[in-house]
């Protein structure tokens, strides 16, 4: 999203070996900020996500929506989709750093972007997934895309009763929760990076 936007990024002569020319600093980041604003983005996080970051971003999101007197049920839906998407990144991103075994901390890299467009909130997540995980994820999302509200609700209840799938760490029900809160069918896409990985992206509108 950052690349190719604004003068600073497109014009190579504005950049030094180390990055942005200090003379161009404000212009460069103003263009970056302007691009985010133009896309209706409330906030966008890219980098290593942890449970603590999830909590803080979630609080900021709820405060922002509450201050703007957003309907309480809309706030809950947006927050819920945000939490499930962020926790999917924490669980499944193929880009991870794990701590020592006695420090059960795990940081996973990904992106979460929240904004508004056409009078709707949107929540987008993006992260790298292993190629081996792509077919199953695609299949789950396509299944959900083909379902109407009632079918999604019935599927949620069915999965709630199921014994946990050892390998999924709860992903199935998390994706159903996301689909359930969406106002229009979820959008998703996979962009191949190399033979071993894809950049996975999902957009949910509320």
């Amino acid at each position, binding site marked *: 999203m950052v690349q190719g936007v604004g003068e600073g990024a497109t014009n190579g002569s504005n950049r030094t070996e180390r990055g942005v020319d200090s003379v161009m600093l404000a212009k460069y980041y103003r263009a970056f900020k302007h691009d985010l604003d133009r896309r209706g983005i409330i906030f966008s996080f890219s980098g290593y996500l942890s*449970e603590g970051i999830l*909590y803080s971003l979630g609080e900021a999101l709820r405060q922002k929506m509450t201050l703007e007197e957003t309907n309480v*049920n809309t706030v809950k839906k947006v*927050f819920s989709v945000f939490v499930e998407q962020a926790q999917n990144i924490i*669980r499944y991103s193929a880009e991870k750093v794990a701590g020592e075994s006695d420090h059960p901390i795990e940081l996973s890299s990904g992106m979460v972007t929240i904004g508004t467009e056409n009078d709707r909130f949107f929540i987008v997540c993006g992260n790298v997934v292993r190629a081996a995980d792509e077919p199953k994820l695609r299949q789950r999302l396509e299944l959900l895309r083909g379902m109407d509200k009632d079918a999604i609700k019935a599927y949620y*209840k069915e999965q*709630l009763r199921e014994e946990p799938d050892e390998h999924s760490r*709860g992903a199935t029900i*998390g994706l*159903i929760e996301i689909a359930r809160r969406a106002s229009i069918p979820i959008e998703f896409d996979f962009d191949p990076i190399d033979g071993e990985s894809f950049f996975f992206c999902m957009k949910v509108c509320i």
Partner: protein
Amino acid sequence: MAMENFKIAATERSPEVNFDFDGCRLSLRGESYPEDASTVFGPLFSALERFLATIGEREFVVEFDLTYFNSSSAKALMNMLKLLDHAARDGARISVSWLFAPDDDTMKEFGEDFSEDLEHVAFNLVAVEPAA
């Protein structure tokens, strides 16, 4: 044999749990969205199993006063409710109250969804105005 009461303070992402064995009451209050729900619900589940084995003729009152939970917590809540329903089927007197704010459609719907799977516990959906 007296059992120790089981209390867990709320954290940023997990509910307050108050399990009063002598008073025969259990309540969960707040929000629940830990990435791994078993860290919160695992110990509670064990305490619940131990307690249900000793319940006898007493009435057990369980109150869920939750404002938000993630999908892995939903699964854990379902398992707890199943455990309670099985105990009630086997003769325990159990009443479950599911509290929700009147304008909170999501929590109301969850209460309705959960109640459909319960055959033996007395289940009450209770709309509660939040304290001013």
